[in-house]
C-alpha cells in the first residue's frame, strides 16, 4: 500500500488541468481559421480551395456587394485557405474553444464593395482587388505617370475589354483590306 502511494507520488499527476488552467497546444496545431478583414482582397481563392464549402462567396450585382462567408460549423481545419491566400488574410490559429449555443455565432461575414465598369456601368470586381493589382504593378516599377491610365484599363470589365479587342481587330482588318484594294 505504502509502496503504491510512494510510486504514485513519484509519478505525479497525469491529468491535465484543462478547464481550470489554459491548455498549451502543440506547435502546428490547426485550430480556428482567423480572418483578417483589413488584409483580405475578396479574390475568392479560399472559397475555391475549401473542400467542405465552409467558405463561400456570394455576389449581389444589383447592390454591388461581394460577400465572403465562413461557417466554422462546416470547417474541417485543413488549412487550404491559408495555403492559397495571396495576402495572408486567413491563418489557422491554435484556438480550439469553438463550442457555441447558436449557429449564428459560428458564422463570419464580410461585405466588399464592387467597382462599376467604366464602359458598361455594371458591377464586376472588388475595389480592393483592383487596388492590390495596382499596388503590385507599382512595386514592379510602373511609372507614376502610367498609374492613372492603368487604373482606367483595370476598371473595364472583361466582357467590355473583349468587345473593345474585337472592335479594334475588325477595324484593323477592314483598314488593311481597303489598303490592299487601293494598291491594286
Amino acid at each position, binding site marked *: 500500500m505504502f509502496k503504491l502511494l510512494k510510486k504514485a507520488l513519484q509519478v505525479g499527476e497525469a491529468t491535465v488541468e484543462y478547464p481550470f488552467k489554459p491548455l498549451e497546444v502543440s506547435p502546428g496545431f490547426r485550430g480556428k481559421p482567423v480572418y483578417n*478583414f483589413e488584409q483580405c482582397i475578396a479574390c475568392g481563392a479560399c472559397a475555391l480551395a475549401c473542400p467542405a464549402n465552409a467558405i463561400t462567396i456570394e455576389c449581389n450585382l444589383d447592390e454591388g456587394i461581394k460577400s465572403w462567408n465562413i461557417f466554422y460549423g462546416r*470547417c474541417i481545419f485543413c488549412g487550404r485557405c491559408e495555403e492559397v491566400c495571396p495576402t495572408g488574410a486567413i491563418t489557422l490559429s491554435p484556438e*480550439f*474553444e469553438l*463550442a457555441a449555443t447558436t449557429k449564428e455565432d*459560428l458564422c463570419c461575414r464580410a461585405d466588399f464593395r464592387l467597382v462599376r465598369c467604366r464602359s458598361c456601368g455594371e458591377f464586376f470586381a472588388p475595389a480592393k482587388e483592383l*487596388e492590390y493589382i495596382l499596388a503590385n504593378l507599382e512595386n514592379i516599377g510602373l511609372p507614376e505617370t502610367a498609374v492613372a491610365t492603368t487604373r482606367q484599363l483595370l476598371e473595364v470589365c472583361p466582357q467590355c475589354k473583349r468587345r473593345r479587342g474585337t472592335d479594334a481587330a475588325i477595324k484593323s482588318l477592314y483598314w488593311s483590306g481597303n489598303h490592299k484594294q487601293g494598291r491594286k
Partner: protein
Amino acid sequence: MTTVEKDFGPREHAKLAEMKEKLKKVIRRSVYVYRVDCGGCNGCEIEIFASISPVYDPERLGIKVVASPRHADVLLFTGPMTRPMRLPALRAYRAAPDPKIVVAYGTCGCSGGIFHDCYSVWGGADKIFPVDVYIPGCPPTPAATLYGMGVALDILQQKIKGAHHVEDEVVRVQPAHPNVHPDLRKGIEREARRLCGYLQGKQIADKYLQFLEEGDLQAVDRKVKELLKDEKDPRLVEVYLKLHQIFTDSMERATGNGG
C-alpha cells in the same frame, strides 16, 4: 421543421425550456452522456474515448459516458445524419428522459461537414433535433470536447461570436515584401514550399525574404550565416542554403547582364 418539434405545442416547449434551465443548475456534477453515431467516420468516437481517458478525466467534473439513452442527460450526436441512421437517432432521442441537452458533436454533427451535399445526408443533428450546443472540429480535440461540455452545462462561457464586417472605405492592401522583386520572391517561395510543404515552407520563405528586404548580397550572406551557426537541424540548414543559392544566382545573372 422536424418530427420531433411536431410532438409538442408551444406550451410544452416553454415548459421544457424552463425544465432545461433547472436541469443545468441541478446537474452540474453528475452528467450522464450518451453518444449516438449517426453515420460518422469514427474520428469523433475516437476523440470522445480519448477525452474520457485519465489524461482529461471528465469524471472529475462529473461527466460520465453511459451505455443507454434512458440514463442520459446529454445526447451527443456525431456524424452527418445519414438516411439509415436518422430513425435510430430519433429513437435514442425519444428514449432519453426530458429534459435533456442535445449536443451536435464534430463538424459533421454541426452541419454535415464535408459530406453536407452528399446524397442521403441530412446535414447535421440540427436538421432533426433542436440542438443546444454545437462543438465544431474535425474531430474536436479532447480539450475542445471538455470545453463544449462546459458550455452545454453553463459552467464555461462561450468564446466565439458571430462577426459581420462591412467595407466603408477602400483600404489598399500592400503586397508582402515590396522591396523584393516578384520573380525572385516567387522562386524562393516555390522552392521553400516544394521542400518543406506549404506551412513550414511559407514560414521559412518569409524569414528568408525578411533578410532580403533589409540588405544587399553581403548583408544577406552574413545574416544567413549567423542564422545557420546556431541551427541544429541539418535539413533546415540545407533548405536555407538552397534558398540562398537561388538569390545568389539571380544576383549573378543581374550583375552579369548589367556588366
